[in-house]
């Protein structure tokens, strides 16, 4: 089945769902077809993709205190015995 190609607005509207892999295979195909031909939308997509990756990386820097880790591991070890 051939679908009408997405324009810029339709592509940007789906940007979050595309980044989160929440689109149907047909929608993914349509978004990617548009990104392959539209420099502006491709730049916006590239920006959002890097931004999300940077935010995730910053959030992942929070580390569990060693004292808490030791306490939890002791609970787990006790349950294992």
């Amino acid at each position, binding site marked *: 089945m051939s679908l009408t190609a997405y324009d810029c607005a339709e592509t940007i509207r789906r940007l979050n769902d595309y980044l989160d892999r929440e689109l149907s295979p047909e929608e993914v195909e349509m978004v990617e077809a548009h990104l392959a031909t539209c420099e502006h939308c491709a730049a916006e997509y590239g*920006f959002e993709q890097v*931004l999300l990756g940077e935010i995730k990386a910053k*959030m992942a820097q929070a*580390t569990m205190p060693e004292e*808490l880790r030791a306490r939890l591991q002791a*609970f*787990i070890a006790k349950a294992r015995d």
Partner: protein
Amino acid sequence: MAESVSTIRPFESELAMVLDTAYRVALRYTRNPDDAADLLQEATLRALKSKDTFVPGSNFRAWFLTIMTRLWWRMAKKIHTEVDVDAGEEPEVYLYQQCRAAGLHPETIDPARTILAKLDADQVSAAIDDLPEDYRAALALNLLENLSYQEIAELLECPIGTVRSRIHRGRNILQRRLWAMVQETP
């Protein structure tokens, strides 16, 4: 019925493996390291006590996060409320637009990395912590655990459309706050 060693070991191994990311989610839920530690400890003890309810082979991470999320609701005396948020659901690509206006063109520079490099992890976390509770929870599960919208909906006991809306709006608000922080950073 006594469980065999072979079924007990994977359970505790799985539990040990989810603790690091669960701690980060607990931090975003509670916005406080002491409360996050209490929440994670209570969830761990609860999981160990109710391990018989876990179906081997099913999604352990989702099972554990469900326990922790229910506990958080109880700790926070959480009541589901719809928040009046000044943000649309469609991507505003706000930061992208601001970067372009500021002369950070993607053709010549990597603007997303450039502006995020100006903020440390604590500042990014503070921007997320400033979001309304329901948005913060959905976004934390989305960004830290990479859960699907359906998995988040089951965890937070709300329709998938609500999760989608909270994540999309949450990102729009977050982008505005991050830009404001960048502007305030010398």
